[in-house]
């Protein structure tokens, strides 16, 4: 059954160019993840990151096709922070979070999970897209430095020499630039400001933060959809959002790299290193300075599922291991890629996730 699904997911994958790696991915998944135990019954309660929400829906549907007795409830209304809080309080079996646990949360997790603490398992990969609306300009390329200047409000018109230099041959109007950011705290903002503060430290003097740090002529909107809406409704607007959520909006290329699932996966493979907070933990640190090649997307966005190493209830541990094991299989990654537009996590990392997951009890 699992193999059949793997094959069908593989054959229906839209990323035809990556067929070789996809095929090997399916093979390694079959090797690393045990077939799902269809006899499990119970309820998994989880919640957190809204970026993961579409992927969670796809995962749950695909998972339930095989394991009918397990109900998975994922509450995206809490956001990453609320998800972690509820998980720390013992309400959730796992939390979805756009950032790994912070030091104080690691301490709190030790109290909740016992001596082994918690595991941050990277299971979701997307990219932060730079979207814009500028009448008459359908293709736009921005260098990292120019993005930092635009979003720090150092550049205020579209025909600024810096933007012109990034777009030879394109006629840019003298329209004022309006930057659009998130008004609510967000993992997307955290990722984007991380990127800016590392990739353009001399231009971007603001801290990396989950709340947009620039004040001034900034349009702040609630949620990624709010940003996409405001960019689309305005004129001369530019904003950032999860790539899987931008819809029809026009995305700029960053350093001439266009977002694709392959480019995001390649970026993760090239720049992510594991910075564990404990044994088996897989918190990732992205080194954005490595993301300068033509085939890697410069702003990958990683999201995690966070579990205890030792569950209070062994039955729940079994259920969570089964579900997350599916999520972290290359079948699960393809399901999310197809239905939620996310990029698959590289196989090497998935193998590590499954190995860490195996230690959960």
């Amino acid at each position, binding site marked *: 059954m699992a193999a059949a699904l793997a094959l069908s997911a593989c054959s229906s994958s839209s990323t035809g160019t990556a067929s070789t790696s996809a095929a090997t991915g399916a093979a390694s998944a079959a090797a690393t993840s045990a077939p799902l135990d269809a006899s499990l019954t119970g309820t998994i309660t989880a919640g957190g990151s809204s970026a993961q929400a579409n992927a969670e829906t796809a995962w749950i549907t695909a998972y339930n096709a095989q394991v009918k007795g397990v109900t998975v409830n994922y509450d995206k209304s*809490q*956001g*990453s*922070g*609320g998800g972690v*809080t509820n998980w720390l309080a013992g309400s959730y079996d796992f939390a979805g979070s756009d950032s790994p646990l*912070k030091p*104080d949360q690691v301490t709190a997790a030790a109290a909740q999970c016992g001596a082994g603490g918690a595991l941050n398992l990277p299971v979701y990969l997307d990219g932060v897209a730079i979207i814009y609306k500028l009448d008459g300009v359908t293709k736009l390329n921005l260098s990292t430095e120019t993005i930092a200047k635009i979003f720090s409000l150092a550049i205020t018109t579209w025909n600024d020499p810096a933007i012109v230099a990034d777009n030879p041959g394109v006629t840019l109007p003298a329209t*004022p630039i*309006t930057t*659009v950011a998130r*008004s*609510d*705290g*967000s*993992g997307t903002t955290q990722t984007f400001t991380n990127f800016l503060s590392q990739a353009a430290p001399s231009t971007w003097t603001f*801290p990396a*933060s*989950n*709340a947009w*740090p620039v*004040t*001034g*002529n*900034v*349009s*702040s*909107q*609630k949620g990624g959809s*709010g940003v996409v*809406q*405001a*960019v689309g*409704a*305005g*004129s*001369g*607007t530019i904003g950032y959002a999860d790539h899987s959520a931008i819809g029809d909006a026009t995305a700029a290329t960053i350093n001439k790299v266009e977002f694709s699932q392959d480019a995001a996966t390649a970026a993760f493979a090239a720049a992510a290193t594991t910075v564990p907070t404990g044994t088996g933990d897989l918190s990732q640190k992205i080194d954005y300075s490595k993301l300068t090649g033509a085939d890697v997307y410069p702003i990958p966005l990683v999201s995690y599922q966070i579990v205890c190493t030792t569950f209070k209830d062994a039955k729940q541990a079994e259920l969570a291991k089964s579900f997350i094991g599916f999520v972290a299989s290359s079948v699960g990654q393809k399901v999310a890629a197809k239905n939620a537009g996310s990029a698959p996590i590289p196989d090497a990392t998935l193998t590590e996730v499954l190995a860490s997951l195996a230690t959960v009890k």
Partner: protein
Amino acid sequence: MSDKISVQSAPPSSAGGSGSTSTKTPGGSPQNAAASRGGTRVRPGDFIFRFLSTGSAVLIMIILAGVALFLIISAIPAITADWGSNDQLNTGPTAAFPNFWAYVGPLIWGTLWSAAIALLFGAPIGIGIALFISHYAPRRLASVLGYLVDLLAAVPSIVFGLWGIIVIRPFLIPLSDWLGANLGWIPIFGGPVTTTGSTILAGALVLAVMILPIITSISREIFLQTPRLHEEAALALGATRWEMIRMSVFPYAKSGIVSATLLGLGRALGETMAIALIISPAILVSVKLITEGQNSQTIAANIALNFPIATTLQRDALIGTGLMLFVISLVVNSIARIIVNGKPLGRKKKSTPAGPRTPGPLSRVPAGDFASATALDVVSGSSRAGKPGDEGPTPEEDIEGARY
């Protein structure tokens, strides 16, 4: 009609009597005691009903006290923390603030400012609608309009928010451009003019629509209570319709209008989702109406936007801002109560001889309970001398019609 009224007024009478004499169980209702002494079947029901109503009254006070206590206890760690050096507070949304008061101050301003603008637009229109329904509209139209305005209250605020984003924001952009170009020298129209339209002006206009139902329905009830004799006296003295309204309706309804407005203000202060969706917020004190980045954030919207990512202490800080909103709402509602208690109670005393049994319980009815006030007026209205004249104000039937 009078049968119905006596039925209506009976339960409050016994409830009010029991409320005031809850300790004296046997002699709770002296008049009825003798009559009902023989029938012991009535007494368990009496006891249960008194217990339930007293219990409900006590419960709501316990809940209110519990909420206040929760807010205070949760807020204390954030209020007392050193925001500059605390790792949880010097990051993210609370990073730029030296202490709690620097954080909550601009939020309080934004809350009051947006609500004030909303009132500026909402109150005159709401009162105008109420006046139209009560004194100008034909009966059929009045009832439909009243129903529609009440329906407006049932629209969820997130729908208002989406309406604000998709309709009102683009609609106001040309106006903002014009104001910025021609009146930009006035501080409230200054600053870089918006391009996405997510201004406090757009938010406040949507808020104004949201507070219309409460202002309209309360004002309408008050206007309908204007003594017919006053109105007809004014008309008989040669007043036009407008002069009659100015001389007899407005003076009579003044306190009611004020309290309707203040209750609308209370609604505006606490509105969350529409504001969170529409306005591009910043935590600063600003009076600018049409800018992108200088719209003062409100307390409720700020909580909604930042709660999901808050650290433990940031959450406490947000709860602290909620405590401030709680206090502000309490003050506003208290003022509304005091004002509405002023005049109508005096009027009720005058009507005491007309209805011997009603004044006691009704004077104890919370001042905001306009349904009871209306019920009282229907009682006294039955003794009104006015006949529906040719050009006279709305007949009694229209009042009923306007209500539903």
